[in-house]
């Protein structure tokens, strides 16, 4: 069975951007595993994966944005993290997607996920988060483009 990786990822990104968590049940297998190698975290099973997505907005820390015209006991968010798929590469049952995410605090991140499908659902995802970086001065003679500034590294 040929799987349209781009369509699958577009559906997932759209669901996340709209906070439509019910769709996740159709995109992940029941026994899906999601790993964050940077922190050593492993989320096992769709219930845990979904709970993490659902609860994430409650912990935006400094990035939390509260609308001024919404009265509620719970914080409301004027904007959600906005994800844009910038690259999807996949064939057969494996693929890689790179997302660009703008968080409410204005920070820019790249989220790169290596995923594995069982049937037409994600059964394994390994997720990496990379911040925007300041272009290293030492590389200036060899590069093009308009480097953006942010944190430092590499």
């Amino acid at each position, binding site marked *: 069975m040929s799987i349209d990786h781009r369509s699958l990822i577009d559906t997932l990104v759209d669901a996340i951007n709209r906070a439509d968590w019910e769709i996740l049940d159709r995109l992940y297998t029941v026994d899906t595993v999601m790993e*964050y*190698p*940077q*922190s*050593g*975290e*492993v*989320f*096992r099973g769709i*219930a*845990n*994966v979904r*709970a*993490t997505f659902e*609860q*994430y907005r*409650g*912990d935006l820390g400094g990035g939390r944005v509260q609308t001024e015209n919404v009265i509620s006991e719970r914080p409301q968010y004027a904007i959600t993290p906005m994800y844009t798929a*910038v*690259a999807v*590469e996949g*064939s*057969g049952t*494996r693929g*890689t997607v*790179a997302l*660009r995410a703008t968080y409410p605090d204005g920070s820019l991140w*790249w989220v*790169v996920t*290596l995923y594995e499908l069982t049937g037409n659902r994600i059964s394994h995802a*390994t997720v*990496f*988060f*990379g*911040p*925007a*970086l*300041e*272009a*290293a001065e*030492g*590389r200036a*003679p*060899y*590069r*093009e*483009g*308009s*480097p*953006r500034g*942010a944190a430092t*590294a*590499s």
Partner: protein
Amino acid sequence: MASDHRAIFERYMAALNRRDVASLTELLHPDFEDFYPQSGELTRGPTNLLALIANYPGAYEDLGRDRVIGGEDRYVSTAMFTVLRVEGSDDVFTGVQRARYPDGSLWIILLIAELKDGLIHRTQSFWAPTFEPPAWRAQWVELRGDPGA
């Protein structure tokens, strides 16, 4: 062809880690481009990549050593790269490496590479630092002992 391409990509990753200019020269397409989305930097052409590698502020002859010279921090030992994973098929591959830098920080490096004519044509490179697992999601998560593995 896919398996050949995989072998080419793995040779490329190994050559990068060894800073093996001769192998890189063989493996890079004349129209090679490497993009760093996180900083917006684009390295165009094999000559610029090789110059960048040659001028990286870490002397390869000091591989494994860990020291600081001069008044400012400089890497005199090469970042230690470990290839963790290679994924892909046909012409596009993703490589995952772990690197510990001389300052002790642990990063994961992702390399998405597109091959053309049996050579490395276009790559995107991402750097992801290790981080502490946040407490708020602890109830849904298991922890591995070795972040970055």
